[in-house]
């Protein structure tokens, strides 16, 4: 009997390891050498949607830079030829030590910073030496809100519009503050922490509305998106992402492209009875807006609990993309990226609005580097998928059927309650999580900061208790094939191919910035802020910050007419919770399994919160 066991075990061990490079302890790959895998595209390429990306005025007023979400600055003083001289101009301590995911905003000589909890809003005077503080606004969110924030107490940004700064607080409020005086104009309570709702996303302000969604997909909340009147803060509409059509604001205008998304009250029928009431479907990522069609676009978060056996069905309208009328909230189309999500593959990543060459003209599309690992090009009028190609290593899905729009699952990776499913790639944070790409109209490329992580997933029954986690999974993550846990990839969306790639040892958790100078900027979790050549990926300049970088870099024109680059360092977020939460890495399941993948991070960086601003010497 024992001999049989030994033989069987040997087979299992061999098969288990041979099939997966991730099993091997490989040296971290070089973090600088780009891999040129394809020539640059010649001739016609994609451009940002014109109405959603006005000419650059040198300010940076919203996280995405513009409604198209390009994160592209038209400033071009800093170039590959001179970036090696880029030098520190000034710094500012945010007085926080949690994950800093937001960009600074710059509006006509004033910089605004929104911090993680306690969500301090600073105004810095860029017209004076050293950028002294003009004012600080303290919204004083409830301390208890920290206890229902799944993945560090982050905030993804504020927005400037028409003399006011708009932002959300962890305890579920939206604030409007006078940009000159720092006085509150209005605040509106939208989320309820007793139900596990927090707000971490940056609002989108457009067409007289402030659009806000909730977080809490790990807490059994019922996700929604709301529109507030920009002047008064009064609720204009709220659409839930689960439940009956009337709650989801699905009516006669709703025309999903694919049969899988068509039908009445699917937000109820695709769930076990009443499970939609605690089924997640939050809106904690990014919104884009097309002023021509007056449509907003956003992705919906994961269904809850993570244990998929507790929610048989497609779990509409989670893990998909909605197009809605900004004025009424009516749903216009929807596309479900991963029906019946198995792996916490929220679909909340950025949506870049672009126009691509098509026949003799151009076609209005959206680019979506999705968490599940595919780069989607979709017609933004209808949701039709034009292409979907993996931009990194994926084994959890076999592809996307362009006829039906359906993702093709890999049944070998289907988690079952009461057992552990191993070597699922990408892991729960996806091939790419929330941190957005940048799109350069100069190169036509999308610059994707992302992960290379796989996981073991043990599903078990989750018990719903309002205000506590509703997950039902023990997860353990680790490096994917190659051993590098992150990558920075330049992607050609038209030819569906990688143009170059920089392997990073740690997950890349910072957003990207592209500039007209031909540069791309991003940060690493151990604190390097890097400038690389947009065409080749060659590392041209780097600066070591005092804490890991997960914040959005920006580029702006200062009052002196010079181009500046700014970023806030402050490790944290889900990937950095192991540092800011002072976690004990002997438990591999810590931070929903992320702790195991970044056990070494506490030795590579420490918590902090510091703004760094750079420019060229005179």
């Amino acid at each position, binding site marked *: 009997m024992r001999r049989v066991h030994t033989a069987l*075990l040997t087979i299992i061990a061999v098969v288990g390891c041979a099939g997966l490079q991730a099993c091997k302890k490989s040296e971290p790959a070089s973090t600088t050498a780009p891999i040129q895998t394809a020539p640059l595209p010649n001739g016609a390429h994609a451009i940002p949607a014109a109405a959603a990306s006005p000419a650059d005025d040198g300010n940076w007023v919203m996280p995405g830079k513009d409604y198209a979400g390009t994160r592209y600055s038209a400033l071009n003083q800093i170039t590959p030829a001179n970036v090696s001289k880029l030098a520190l101009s000034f710094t500012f301590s945010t007085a926080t030590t949690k994950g800093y995911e937001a960009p600074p905003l710059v509006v006509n000589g004033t910089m605004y910073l929104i911090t993680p909890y306690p969500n301090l809003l600073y105004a810095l005077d860029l017209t004076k030496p050293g950028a002294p503080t003009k004012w600080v606004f303290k919204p004083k969110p409830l301390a208890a809100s920290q206890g229902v924030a799944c993945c560090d107490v982050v905030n993804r940004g504020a927005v400037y519009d028409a003399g006011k700064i708009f932002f959300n607080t962890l305890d579920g409020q939206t604030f409007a503050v006078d940009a000159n005086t720092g006085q509150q104009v209005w605040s509106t309570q939208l989320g309820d922490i007793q139900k596990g709702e927090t707000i971490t996303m940056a609002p989108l302000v457009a067409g007289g509305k402030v659009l806000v969604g909730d977080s809490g997909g790990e807490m059994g909340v019922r996700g929604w998106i709301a529109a507030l009147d920009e002047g008064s803060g009064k609720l204009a509409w709220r659409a839930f992402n689960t439940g009956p059509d009337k709650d989801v604001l699905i009516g006669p205008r709703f025309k999903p492209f694919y049969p899988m998304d068509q039908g009445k009250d699917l937000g109820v029928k695709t769930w076990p009875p009443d499970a939609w009431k605690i089924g997640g479907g939050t809106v904690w990522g990014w919104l884009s807006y097309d002023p021509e069609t007056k449509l907003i676009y956003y992705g919906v978060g994961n269904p809850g609990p993570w244990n998929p056996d507790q929610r048989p069905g497609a779990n509409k309208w989670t893990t998909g993309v909605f197009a809605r009328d900004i004025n009424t909230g009516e749903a216009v189309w929807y596309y479900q990226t991963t029906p019946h999500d198995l792996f916490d593959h929220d679909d909340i990543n950025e949506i870049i609005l672009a126009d691509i060459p098509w026949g003799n003209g151009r076609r209005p599309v959206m680019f979506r580097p999705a968490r599940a690992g595919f780069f989607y090009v979709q017609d933004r009028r209808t949701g039709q998928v034009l292409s979907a190609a993996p931009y990194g290593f994926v084994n959890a899905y076999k592809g996307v059927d362009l006829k039906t729009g359906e993702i093709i699952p890999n049944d070998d990776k289907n988690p079952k309650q009461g057992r552990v499913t191993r070597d699922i790639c990408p892991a729960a944070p996806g091939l790419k999580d929330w941190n957005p790409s940048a799109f350069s109209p100069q190169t036509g490329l999308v610059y994707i900061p992302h992960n290379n992580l796989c996981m073991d997933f043990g599903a078990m029954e989750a018990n719903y208790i309002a205000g506590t986690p509703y997950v039902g999974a*023990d997860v353990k993550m680790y490096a994917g094939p190659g051993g590098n846990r992150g990558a920075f990839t330049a992607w050609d969306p038209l030819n569906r191919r990688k143009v170059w790639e920089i392997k990073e040892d740690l997950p890349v958790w910072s957003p990207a910035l592209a500039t007209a100078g031909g540069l791309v900027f991003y940060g690493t979790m151990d604190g390097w802020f890097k400038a690389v050549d947009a065409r080749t990926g060659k590392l041209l300049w780097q600066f070591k910050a005092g804490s890991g970088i997960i914040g959005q870099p920006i580029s702006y024109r200062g009052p002196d007419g010079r181009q500046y680059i700014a970023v806030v360092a402050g490790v944290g977020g889900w990937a950095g919770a192991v540092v800011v939460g002072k976690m004990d890495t002997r438990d591999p399941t810590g931070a929903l399994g992320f702790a195991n993948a970044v056990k070494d991070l506490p030795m590579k960086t420490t918590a902090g919160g510091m703004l760094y601003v750079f420019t060229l010497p005179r």
Partner: protein
Amino acid sequence: MSSRFRASVLAFAMAALTLGACDREEHHDRAKPLGETVPAGQSPDTIWPGGSSPSPLDPRAKLYDNNAPAIAEGQQLFSQMNCVGCHSHGGGGMGPALMDDEWRYGGRIDQIAASIAEGRPNGMPAWKTKLTSDQIWKLAAYVRSLSGLPSKDAVSSRSEGMSSGTPQTLVSHGNIKNSDTAEQ
């Protein structure tokens, strides 16, 4: 199914579970118990002004602390009440780590029970209306056991429910020194 067969199937399943992870994990015997960071009857993180004395240890402490059945039941409650969702299996996440030797609100069992019952201002829920006092004390006994404070023979060597990794009592310390082992 004979019990012998069941036992061998179980042994096989557990061995397969362990081996499937290849060499990502190294297995050691249970880590040595940590030193007593909170001497019995004292609350080191509180000042008693004017030379007054700390409150005496709650007499219920001796019923639950180091009590193996209480710790085992506490471990079940730890999963059922979703404590695991925030604190993981002691490593922490949304909530602080419980297997280290840092206690924000005191590591004496009655202090832990008070934290569970009353909640704490940075996000710890108050459980006194949801759980009985007996359940809260069993949870406190388990939480204290995570840090290695109770004697070794009272702690179950198997974790309740399923973990995708080895039980936390068997997991290696990895490459970095943890704060609770660095000084010993």
